[in-house]
């Protein structure tokens, strides 16, 4: 399973990835493979605040519904409308076109507290 080297992770498989002054949220390749075909995503609208470790949305696959947890705190500045219309983008390109929301971090140092790619790899059984 691919692990984006530029991202950092929660054990619950969400990632945050720096994009200029913002952070992009998504779910890992491991997570999308485990979920199977994604059929629905519910995301917060622009301007909403998200809190590290708290639920910021929902992702539903053919198999099941899962909560999405925010890797870091901040304010939503952009929502991926393409993934809302075509949730299969999460399966096709979870680190690219299948991103979920873009957030202006309220405490950028939170990023350092996330699992780095190597540590996340270990939690999913990959070295």
């Amino acid at each position, binding site marked *: 399973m691919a692990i984006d080297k530029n991202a950092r992770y929660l054990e619950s498989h969400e990632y945050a990835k720096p994009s200029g002054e913002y952070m992009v949220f998504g779910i890992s390749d491991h997570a999308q493979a485990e979920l*199977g*075909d994604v*059929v*629905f995503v*519910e995301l917060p609208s622009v301007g909403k605040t998200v809190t590290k470790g708290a639920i910021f949305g*929902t992702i*539903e696959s*053919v*198999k099941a519904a899962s909560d999405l947890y925010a890797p870091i705190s901040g304010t939503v500045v952009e929502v991926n409308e393409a993934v809302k219309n075509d949730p*299969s983008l999460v399966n096709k390109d979870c680190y690219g076109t299948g991103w979920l929301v873009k957030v202006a971090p309220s405490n950028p140092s939170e990023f350092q507290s996330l699992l780095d790619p190597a540590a996340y790899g270990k939690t999913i059984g990959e070295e």
Partner: protein
Amino acid sequence: MIYMEEEPTNTTALHDWHVSHGAKMAPFAGYDMPINYTTGAIEEHLITRRSVGLFDIDHMGQFEITGPGADEFVARMVTAKVSDLVPPMARYSLLLDEKGGIIDDLFVYRLPASWWIVVNASNRATDLAWFKAHAPSNVEVTDRSDDTYMIAVQGPRAIELLDKVANNPVSTIQRFCWGNIVIDGIPVLFGRTGYTGEDGGELFFPAEQALQLWEFLLRQGEWLGIETRPIGLAARDSLRFEAGMPLHGHEISIDINPIEAGFKWACDFEKEFVGKEALLDIIEKGISRKLVGIEVFSGVPREGYEVVSPEGSVIGRCVAGMFCPTIKKYAANAFIEPSFAKAGTNVSVIIRGQLRDAVVVKRPLYVPAYRR
């Protein structure tokens, strides 16, 4: 679809093939079955709607009923009219208990010298016991499930594929009829039936030839340029759901009667059958819930979710629900109070604690090929 949680005790002859081809396996009806291949459940659904899907459905059960009293026995046991069935005809039917509860749904094939009954995997033992317990001394009920393999070949190009690989064309066999064919030297009883809403058929043949026939059909599909892929149970479920076909344990069960579930058409009230008196009583008294389709505009409805009236009271519960890949909608089947059952009625579904707008819709969501 809810997969059974207990450990599977059985595997089909194609189990190793599924695993080696990357299938995600899970227990279903006591069998370790492919849920989807690396293709993915949604693409597998769409392949079956546009070309040909192959389904390993060996977990299904087959009984053969013989003897001088067989015609009368079958007619009494199943709800559908069978007295007019002559070879090579087959018909969908229900199996009821005395209270009108649905023990199972099944397909009844009229063979030249016997009746061939195809039942659901999860009910095989129950059905067999039920038939045997009711069989008079001049009727024999034989479980043929273990020596019979069953593969479904479904999709708009399924008949074209089979016509090219079988010794006799299957296109001359009418819908809901059967014929004997030979494919790659293997004798096959071909029924022009299915559980996807597409044309195609179900193949019954000796169990030891499962791998040979499965690989032959895939290879022939490739050579002939007819897209042919293995399809897992997740897509089988979404295909049947869109086409309005019931899955036992969901739209039908021992606690649901055919009137509630919309299967009065499958019951022949001109004859005697087990459960008929109960059904007549139910019809006279009226029903308190009815099976409907519900479209949800945002979110995925699933089994167990509550349906709520515009006034806010709970009026029923979903028995199945999912994203429908062909029509690209989120939909459920639910039993609700009959006064809300008219298509176009606005309702809500509680999805993970939130009320979601929904509307009662006409079933089926996708009109099956045989009704077009």
